[in-house]
């Protein structure tokens, strides 16, 4: 079995079918870029992987992690266990405005540590929390925000906010980290710093799925690109090949449109 394996994933909203049966798998350490027009189901796919939406049909499995089957009923805490295996970085950052960059990363970790301690008193809570603090500091340094830890989100640029959000998602040590158009809300001059962080994560072996419109980035960083159209994976392959020689007319039309709009 692959590291992450998704089979026949389906999701509808009312009478609108958004995902028509997605089969997808990836290996540990792999970086997959997801491209496609709006409304193609990319975001819904990520949201299903992170259980913000519960799929109507299909399975999601992580090797040595969890196994989700849409036919089964899960309790809220079982869903939370699975959520913690996945990470998600949003287009609009969604930092908590009342907390500093440091607390945005530390507080979610603290809540989980405290919960763990309630069930298992055998470890020292204070020491575990100190470890959490250390990890928050380490992660913020990793994304280049050593000097911004005590700043509030409104004091940070969009690019800095998104890097805090990445550190926050990494804090729970997810098996797969997902990005939903991480640079779409950023001014063009700020996208570079975020993409650089994602590139560095790849070099460290982080398993990632990145929904993006940045074709150059997808080409350079992703091991594989998948093209979503009308709720199915229309085509997938090595980015170079997919971008240069798409076999599906839909992919070709989309890429032509993107390139056209870039040149125009």
């Amino acid at each position, binding site marked *: 079995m692959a590291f992450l394996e998704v089979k026949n994933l389906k999701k509808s909203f009312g009478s609108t079918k958004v995902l028509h049966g997605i089969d997808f798998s990836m290996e540990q350490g792999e970086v997959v870029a997801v491209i496609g027009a709006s409304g193609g189901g990319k975001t819904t796919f990520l949201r299903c992987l*992170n259980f913000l939406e519960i799929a109507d049909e299909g399975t999601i499995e992580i090797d040595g992690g969890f196994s989700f089957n849409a036919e089964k009923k899960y309790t809220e805490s079982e869903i939370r266990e699975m959520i913690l295996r996945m990470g*998600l970085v949003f287009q609009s950052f969604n930092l908590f405005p009342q907390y500093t960059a440091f607390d945005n990363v530390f507080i979610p970790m603290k809540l989980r540590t405290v919960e763990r301690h309630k069930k298992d008193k055998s470890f020292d809570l204070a020491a575990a929390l100190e470890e959490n603090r250390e990890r928050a500091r380490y992660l913020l340094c990793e994304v280049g925000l050593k000097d911004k830890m005590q700043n509030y989100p409104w004091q940070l640029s969009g690019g800095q906010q998104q890097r805090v959000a990445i550190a926050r998602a990494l804090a729970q040590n997810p098996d797969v980290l997902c990005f939903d158009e991480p640079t779409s809300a950023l001014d063009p001059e700020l996208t570079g710093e975020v993409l650089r962080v994602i590139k560095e994560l790849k070099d460290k072996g982080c398993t990632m799925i990145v929904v993006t419109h940045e074709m150059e980035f997808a080409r350079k960083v992703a091991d594989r690109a998948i093209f979503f159209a009308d709720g199915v994976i229309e085509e997938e392959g090595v980015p170079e090949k997919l971008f240069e020689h798409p076999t599906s007319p839909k992919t070709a039309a989309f890429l032509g449109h993107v390139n056209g709009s870039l040149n125009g």
Partner: protein
Amino acid sequence: MGFLEVTQALLDGLWNTFLIFALTLVLALPLGLVISFGSMSKIKPISYIVKFFVWIIRGVPLMLQVIIIYYVPGMLFGVPVLSRFVAVIVAFVINYACYFSEIYRGGIEGIPRGQYEAAQVLGMTKWETFRTVILMQVIKRILAPMGNEVITLVKDTALARVIMVVEIIQAAQNFAAYGLMWPLFYTAVFYLAFVGVLTLLFGYLEKKLSYYKV
């Protein structure tokens, strides 16, 4: 009847004004939160019933509500069930809780969905999300409309005299029987001082919370 004597009488009245104000606030603030949860309930019948109730309470003058709550139990059961003061408190608490509930609802519904989703993907429970993420943002959002409502409450306490609860205006009017009008105008000083303190308090809270933006 000299200045000191009038001032003493007005201060006695002000004590009732303050009691009505404080008791209403202490009881209506939490009750309003409960009502707002009701009006936001996903169970439609509950939300409809609560919204209907809020419409009634906000749609009828508070003065009339005070009269109804004081007299109607008596008319139905033959004896006045509530003391005058308790009737005033019950009417005020219900009325203000409904207004507060709408302020809470606006504050809670105004929180972007992304905040809940971010909390969810970080593995927070619903209660953790409310406590650590949502609450402080709601407080900041509702501070200004709450300040308005609380200041209105100070002056609404004057409605208590409709069932002869002697608050400061009534205390001043008692002097009118002796042909003295100035005590009535003098009450404005007390109201202004009361509201002045509240204005400073809300200004202080706003400043306290200015370290973050929502």
